[in-house]
């Protein structure tokens, strides 16, 4: 959590935009997304399906499917090196070594025809140039690190012989093999049950404390974010609409979308029966990016939409690392303007 001055962030993303060509038309999937993460920090990226969370992750890995996709603007600085300008072979050297990723589905993200040890050793062989036996020995150590029981035996297990939680641990071991500076976790616990979810978060935190890994946690679950993240960015339709520390965003959300998202969280009340009420929802659906949006992407669903929302608001910085992309946050706004 050392985001203080003088500490250069490990990862800086600046004005990142990704375009997809769909039926000969350019569609902007990510618009001007920017954030930074310091060593040992966890940044939660939250949003609903299709808001650009996973595309952000793929951009960081340099794995935007191309064609049809393309990073059209922006910079991704990892330890000061611009990944957008890196060659494919340079990117291959960086992937797995400096930045790595855990995927959503532990059931499908391991290759069924190789033992888990073999797959972990693959990363080690590739990036550290160790021989087969040494790499396998290191794989055993990694399995121990992620608390897999009897690691020297599990190393020769095939993925289908392991449970979902175990597989996710194996994925984490793979991702951590070369002690990356940044670990991207794309919905790492969505496919797991709640107990295992808590264990995986504990594990990630433990590793982060020990190694100072920066974690980008991508999720649609505010619960996961509030458990793990130091800072949060909220995404909607490819825009970063709000950024702040966990407390700022959860206690003092400024963007109507974030406020709506927080209201949608079910609460467990002591005497639920007395105050039974339907779970609030945000009316409407995510806009179709194909239709070409002008103005604020959330305007059509926003309870406080006004005339100005026909124009895309800039990101208003309220404080360092605290920003809201909404006209409501515009301090210079005419005080008389009323929500329509």
């Amino acid at each position, binding site marked *: 959590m050392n985001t203080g001055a003088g500490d250069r962030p490990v990862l800086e993303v600046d004005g990142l935009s990704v375009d997809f060509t769909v039926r000969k038309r350019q569609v902007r999937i990510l618009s001007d997304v920017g954030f930074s993460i310091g060593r040992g920090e966890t940044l939660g990226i939250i949003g609903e399906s299709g808001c650009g969370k996973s595309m952000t992750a793929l951009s960081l890995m340099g794995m935007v499917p191309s064609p049809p996709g393309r990073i059209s603007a922006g910079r991704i600085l990892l330890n000061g090196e611009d990944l957008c300008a890196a060659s494919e072979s340079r990117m291959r050297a*960086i992937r797995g070594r400096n930045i790595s990723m855990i995927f959503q589905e532990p059931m499908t993200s391991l290759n069924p*025809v190789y033992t888990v040890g073999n797959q972990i050793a693959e990363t080690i062989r590739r*990036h550290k140039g160790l021989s087969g036996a040494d790499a396998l020995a290191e794989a055993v150590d990694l399995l121990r690190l992620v608390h897999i029981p*009897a690691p020297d*035996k*599990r190393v020769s297990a095939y993925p289908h012989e392991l449970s979902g939680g175990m597989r996710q641990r194996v994925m984490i071991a*793979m991702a951590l093999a070369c002690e990356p500076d940044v670990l991207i976790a794309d919905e790492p616990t969505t496919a797991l049950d709640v107990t295992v979810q808590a264990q995986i978060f504990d594990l990630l935190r433990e590793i982060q404390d020990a190694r100072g890994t920066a974690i980008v946690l991508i999720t649609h679950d505010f619960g996961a974010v509030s458990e793990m993240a130091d800072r949060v960015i909220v995404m909607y339709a490819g825009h970063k609409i709000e950024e702040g520390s966990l407390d700022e965003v959860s206690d003092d959300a400024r963007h109507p979308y974030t406020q709506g998202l927080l209201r949608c969280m079910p609460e467990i009340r002591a005497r639920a029966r007395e105050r039974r009420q339907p779970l609030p929802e945000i009316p409407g659906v995510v806009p179709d990016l194909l239709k070409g949006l002008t103005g604020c992407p959330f305007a059509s669903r926003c309870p406080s939409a006004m005339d100005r929302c026909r124009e895309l608001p800039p990101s208003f910085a309220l404080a360092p690392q605290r920003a809201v992309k909404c006209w409501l946050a515009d301090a210079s706004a005419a005080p008389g303007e009323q929500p329509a």
Partner: protein
Amino acid sequence: MSEAQEPTVPPVRFDDPADVPEVRWRVTAAMFYGNKAAVLGIAVLAAILLVGLFGPLLLQADPFAIVGAPLTAPGELRPLGTDYLGRDVLAGMIHGTRPTLIVALSATAFTVVIGLSVGAVAGFYGGRIDNLLMRITEFFQVLPPLVFAMVIVAIMGAHFMTVIIAIGVTTWTNLARLTRAEFLKIKEREFVLADRAIGVRDSRLILRVLLPNALPPLIIAVTLQTGLTIIYEAALSFLGLTDPDIMTWGKMIGLSRDFFFDAWWSVTFPGLAILLTTLCIALIGDGLNDAFNPRLRGR
């Protein structure tokens, strides 16, 4: 719940099978040898190979020599009878084993190399490369393979190698399409993305990640292809487009086909030999597939 049920609950054991360190090739071999059909296939194919290797030395008869009356039924002197020219069917089969197997295996190998490479590259890269390779594949598909093979043999001359090349060049398309389809399916799976995310290069992704996962249907296709190759060679022989000095099973069937009702033996025995060989290869392929499939281990 009841006390009577209690003893039936097995005690929890912590020394699970993973306790025994697994030596992989040994497990694979054990799986393979546990498969009786596959072992039978190996045994019979080995016997056929031995006949191919040593048969001509033991039975030094000329398969083209006329040794008796045409269409003699199997009997004491000629165990498998004679064909329509009075040539010994047994001698033909034994001397035909080696060339038949060589043509079948090398033409299949040729087919596999072309088909797998084209299909893998097309399926993996997609886009323009896929488009180009698939149009080429279709070009080969719309040509009647036999006519195409005839043209190749006619241009290059009726040599043994020409026949192998002609069969290989005309029959790789199915395998290419199958490989491409498998690759298209598998490359969408998340572990391919995960392997990319640890910096695995394309060539390794194709050979070590996608190909092993695509193998099961391909092995079946290849074993069937081997049988087809023998048939193709027979068709070319029938048209007189193979090396006239070399006897093969296919050639025997092709030449004696019209005499099936007068001399069933001249067609049936080489036909059975082809069937047996193809079946053995299919059984072995099946056994290998099961043995290499980690999911079936411990069954």
